[in-house]
């Protein structure tokens, strides 16, 4: 139990560092919108999502109706439903519904990616270990960003943006290298995603649509053999 948790803590370190810088930018944005660092902290601790809370905060500043805020948050974050669905197969079968509901709080793009990378099934201890430092990083970064707004030079903030994307690349490329099917899936996804930027749809819908279409196409025409799943 404890060993699993510590392993999770260790594996979550790079994500925590990435979150610290991304959430710093979010904190700055909230402060510049005229709100207190405490409100920024409240948003980050209750939402724990990047794109979702950036978009939601913008709507909140414009005094948008709650239904619009709810719909936008839903569309941008619907990809988490797909991730949670994948995680149902990765979690330890003995994990009960209450434990699953607690773990659900920690489903983010990066935590999901790391959990799926682990060999064998994922226990609650490991998952919560993974989530702990990134959550602290996300909260701390937001608060500091709002508190010291303007302290981080733009030159550094700009290059920090690439950190999480670079991490995603480091997660998918070794898989692409090892499996031909994954390679095809990734190439298809990138092509569709580039085309989608020219279509009049939001990036939230594009991510969901492309993920479903490409994964379904691949599952039907290039099913993954039993032992590889």
């Amino acid at each position: 139990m404890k060993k699993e948790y510590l392993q999770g803590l260790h594996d979550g370190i790079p994500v925590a560092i990435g979150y610290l810088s991304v959430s710093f930018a979010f904190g700055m944005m909230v402060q510049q919108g005229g709100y207190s660092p405490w409100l920024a902290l409240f948003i980050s601790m209750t939402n724990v999502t990047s794109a979702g809370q950036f978009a939601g905060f913008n709507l909140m500043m414009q005094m948008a109706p709650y239904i619009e805020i709810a719909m936008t948050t839903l569309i941008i974050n619907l990809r988490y439903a797909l991730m949670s669905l994948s995680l149902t197969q990765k979690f330890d079968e003995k994990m009960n519904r209450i434990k699953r509901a607690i773990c659900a709080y920690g489903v983010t793009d990066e935590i999901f990616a790391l959990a799926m990378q682990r060999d064998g099934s994922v226990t609650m201890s490991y998952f919560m270990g993974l989530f702990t430092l990134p959550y602290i990083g996300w909260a701390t970064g937001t608060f500091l960003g709002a508190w010291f707004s303007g302290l981080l030079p733009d030159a550094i903030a700009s290059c920090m943006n690439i950190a999480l994307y670079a991490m995603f690349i480091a997660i998918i490329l070794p898989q692409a290298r090892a499996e031909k099917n994954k390679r095809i899936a990734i190439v298809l996804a990138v092509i569709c995603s580039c085309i989608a930027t020219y279509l009049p749809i939001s990036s939230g819908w594009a991510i969901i649509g492309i993920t479903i279409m490409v994964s379904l196409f691949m599952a039907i025409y290039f099913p993954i053999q039993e032992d590889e799943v």
Partner: protein
Amino acid sequence: MTQAIMSIVVMAVVTYLVRMLPLVLFTKKIENQTVKSFLAYVPCVVLATMTFPAIFSCTSHWLSGVIGASVAIFFGYQKRSLVEVAIIAVVTVFIVERFI
């Protein structure tokens, strides 16, 4: 202020439900080969979709984005660790932007 707090609560509840419902509703291991394959493809497809082409426009100049992405792809393909690839990409973008 109440409007702000209420908006945040709405965001938080929607986000949590999206994450929680699939996990709580589907607890059985899936046997169907197509569904299993679908779920196995989701992680790399969703990450690839989110990364491209967004990575090219996340920095202050497209050129630093393209060079940073190329470096990340090169080292990612070499199976370097996540931290290494992230740090190398950030440093590359920083250096390139000094020359733009």
